[in-house]
């Protein structure tokens, strides 16, 4: 294990080099030729994706940098989807960013660095590396939110995001320091070994550490009661940035939560499982109920994210205290599948918002979608699929996400204590359907209103193609979910050491 093994970190290395090249190259690109930077960024993403694709066949667990970095099928899959999400984001951002003076080099480099942070978080196997990745990601995102300096709401959102995000990072770091104090190591594998064999200085400091780590992660995830920033940031940030915040980072937080809680601190599961139950149920309740009251689409999606993350946490927490390896693997692969499909669906929904936005018009109220079916039946249909996917109605992929989570909860049968969680999840899924249906209602049942109705939808070809692919994926993966389910199951199986 004591070697650098740079090859394992090839995706990150490619991305880092590309990001630096783009950073410098962009200095020589005049504003009107910005498409060059765009093309370069897409090429960089494609190169990273290609490397990851090549890694996908690699079934072994590889450590690099003396065990600080890990690469296995799970990290590869999560990174692949992160790259995909960022790629979609840049395609969707074009029109919006051009109209608002955001089509600048910073958009690309900051996005690529955020992606680098995300990939680092996914692969980190050391508490400090996790923190480094998290901060790289978070600092890039703070700056991206503030990219429209002249926009008061965006600046406010950036400020809020920064202050609360810094607080969350503080929590996380504090928790990590306690874990270090209790166990004497920063290495996750070593931490796991010491906790399992009882070689710890103080169990109390470990438990306290877990509390702070979970609070920090819940902050980043946007779980209740650490969700306050989510609606404001989603609402205030420029929509492409909201899209970025809402998609790829969730994959990274999932990986970090898995790494610290499951790989590192499984013996403490009795403690953190209860915390996750509280977070999950509170998120489901508050997220779904508050989302109903929203009239702003971005705020509604923010609360919907809170609820969706609650659902994902249910899967996370159902994996422990079973002693049954297959059930454990099923639970974490359910969580992974959930978070991937969530990211995929979120991309599309914000993509539609971006499609409708124009200069001086954000298209972010639910009312702005009125009569979309008359204006553009195809994109209305795409949005319909995305909404039903978020609501968990077959034949969209969101159904299988909810299904595997329920399955993970019920694996012990009706006598298990998890049943009431399943019932809560189901009840709030019905309540959640209300606001997704409202969007469908606006698109299909209402007539176009106001100035929106008259303006045709303009978008570049790649945007149209990407959005169509996005929508089609939600349907195709919903009819044939086998491939993605198996990908997640195999990845988790390998990560658990099966």
């Amino acid at each position, binding site marked *: 294990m004591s070697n650098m093994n740079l090859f394992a970190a090839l995706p990150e290395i490619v991305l880092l080099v590309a990001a630096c090249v783009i950073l410098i190259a962009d200095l020589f690109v005049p504003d009107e030729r910005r498409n060059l930077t765009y093309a370069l960024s897409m090429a960089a993403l494609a190169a990273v994706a290609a490397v990851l694709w090549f890694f996908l066949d690699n079934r072994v667990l590889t450590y690099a940098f003396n065990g600080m970095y890990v690469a296995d099928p799970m990290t590869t899959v999560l990174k692949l989807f992160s790259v995909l999400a960022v790629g979609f984001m840049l395609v969707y951002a074009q029109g919006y960013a051009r109209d608002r003076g955001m089509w600048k080099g910073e958009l690309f480099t900051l996005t690529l660095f955020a992606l680098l942070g995300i990939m680092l978080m996914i692969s980190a196997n050391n508490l400090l590396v996790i923190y480094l990745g998290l901060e790289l990601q978070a600092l890039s995102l703070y700056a991206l939110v503030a990219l429209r300096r002249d926009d008061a709401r965006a600046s406010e959102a950036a400020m809020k995001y920064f202050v609360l995000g810094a607080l969350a990072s503080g929590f996380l770091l504090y928790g990590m320091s306690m874990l270090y104090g209790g166990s004497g190591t920063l290495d996750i594998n070593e931490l796991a070994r010491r906790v399992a064999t009882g070689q710890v200085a103080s169990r109390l400091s470990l438990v306290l550490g877990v509390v702070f780590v979970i609070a920090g992660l819940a902050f980043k995830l946007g779980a209740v009661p650490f969700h306050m920033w989510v609606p404001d940031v989603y609402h205030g940030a420029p929509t492409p940035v909201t899209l970025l915040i809402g998609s790829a980072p969730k994959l990274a937080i999932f990986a970090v939560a898995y790494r610290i809680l499951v790989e590192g601190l499984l013996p403490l599961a009795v403690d953190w499982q209860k915390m996750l139950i509280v977070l999950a149920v509170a998120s489901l309740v508050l997220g779904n109920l508050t989302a109903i009251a929203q009239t702003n689409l971005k705020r509604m999606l923010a609360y919907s994210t809170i609820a969706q993350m609650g659902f994902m946490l249910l899967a996370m927490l159902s994996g422990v205290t079973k002693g049954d390896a297959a059930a454990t693997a099923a639970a974490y692969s359910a969580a992974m599948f959930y978070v991937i499909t969530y990211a995929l669906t979120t991309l599309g929904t914000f993509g539609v918002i971006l499609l409708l936005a124009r200069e001086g018009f954000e298209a972010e109220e639910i009312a702005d979608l009125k009569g979309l079916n008359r204006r553009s039946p195809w994109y209305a249909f795409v949005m319909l699929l995305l909404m039903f996917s978020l609501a968990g*109605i*077959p034949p969209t992929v969101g159904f299988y996400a909810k299904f*595997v989570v329920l399955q993970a909860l019920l694996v012990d049968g*009706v006598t298990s204590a998890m049943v009431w969680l399943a019932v809560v999840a*189901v009840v709030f899924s019905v309540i959640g359907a*209300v606001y997704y249906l409202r969007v469908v209602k606006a698109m299909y*049942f209402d007539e176009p209103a106001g100035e929106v109705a008259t303006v045709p939808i303009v978008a570049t070809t790649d945007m149209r193609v990407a959005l169509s692919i996005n929508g089609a994926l939600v349907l195709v993966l919903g009819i044939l*979910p086998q491939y993605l389910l*198996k990908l997640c199951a195999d990845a988790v199986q390998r990560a658990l050491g099966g």
Partner: protein
Amino acid sequence: MGNSTPWLSLAIWIPIVFGGLILAAGRDRNAGVIRTVALTGSLLGLLVTIPLWTGFDATTAELQFVEKAAWIERLNAHYHLGVDGISVWFVLLTAFITVIVVLAGWEAIESRVAQYYAAFLILSGLMIGVFAAADGLLFYVFFEATLIPMYIIIGIWGGSNRVYAALKFFLYTLAGSLLMLVALVYLYTVSGGQFGIHDWHQAKIGMTPQILLFLAFLAAFAVKVPMWPVHTWLPDAHVEAPTGGSIVLAAIMLKLGAYGFLRFSLPIVPDASHQLAGFIIALSLIAVVYIGLVALVQADMKKLVAYSSIAHMGFVTLGFFIFEPVGMAGGIVQMISHGFVSGAMFFCIGVMYDRMHSRQIADYGGVVNTMPKFAAFFMLFAMANAGLPATSGFVGEFMVILGAVKYDFWIAAAAASTLVLGAAYSLWMYKRVVFGEVANENVAALTDVNAREFGILLLLAAAVLWMGVYPKPVTDLMDASVKQLIEHVQQSKLPTASAARLDR
């Protein structure tokens, strides 16, 4: 008829593919082409179900025309289709009604024609999928997916209160079916990771889980049937749905719920079914008597028929839960018959609505004077709705009452009150709408049915009379399957004491 041709898959996917094509290519300016393509799709869909009937082997209760392929290996779910003597009728009914629905909207639908026909064709394929699915997850996917087109149909082409009705319909059914999903996941777990419905029929389940499962299934199916007291979405949805939507809703969607009882509740949790039969019978009788009375006072024709549908479906559930073979078969015959009769009733109301744009009984009167041909057909269907002998409505009701007498005389007596109530609300409405002097100049200006409408009415009338006069082919085909179902219901699925000992 070999197993070589996947007739069931064709029956499911032909309408869906045609629907998809229409959705992708259709615009309002080529409405004529769309209608023709939709009709072709629905006729092809009907055509491929004919081999299911002619090639059906009535001597066995086994699934026929089985298709099985790996679908989601990770969950051990299969693309597993097959029909038995019960479900084959619903496949046929669905394909037949789809043709009627396409024809029914021929002139009335002028806006978003492509989406209208696409929604109905896709819905049709999905519903056939529900009846043909032999895999629990596949069943659920089809079952839930029907919500999407139906929500759109009610919401876009419905009447003034359509948004409310669509939302109510969606949420009621979603709440029910999600509880069923929990039940399916539970069954998947106890059966050792199987999704085959017929594997579940063999599962041994303790009494407490059986009761919980039964209640979960009840939540899903009772809403769809719909049973009192969760029926309130139906009148709203019906009144606001376009004619085609009402026909599909009454003729087929409601059958999904009753079919669910047959496939899931009765054979999988028979002990709980016996335990709770009294409860279901009570709900059924309330539906028959109370909802029958409610139907009597309706001023809106569609509401009246909607309530009468609830009453008729009460008969179906009553037939299932008295556990007599004749009652069970009667319930199924009643389902098929109700498909034709309620479809016909809603079509008749649609014919009048297209001309007058009113569903209020009070706006009509003396229609017979201006629409004699129509009045004759309407008469037949009203009679069938009332359960007159020689119409299909009579056969099922009679069989159920026959079964109920064996079970308990007083239940039979209460159920038989439907013959009076049904006659009262159907015929009283008919009298007020059709007979008498011409009520106003709108009625005076009515024109009689055209060739298209005449054809539809003729088809439906033929079906109603055929089932009323000679129901033997129907009952013969389902006989073996009903017998097997009864066997499953009689057999206890509790883990026996000796089996429990062996486990240990």
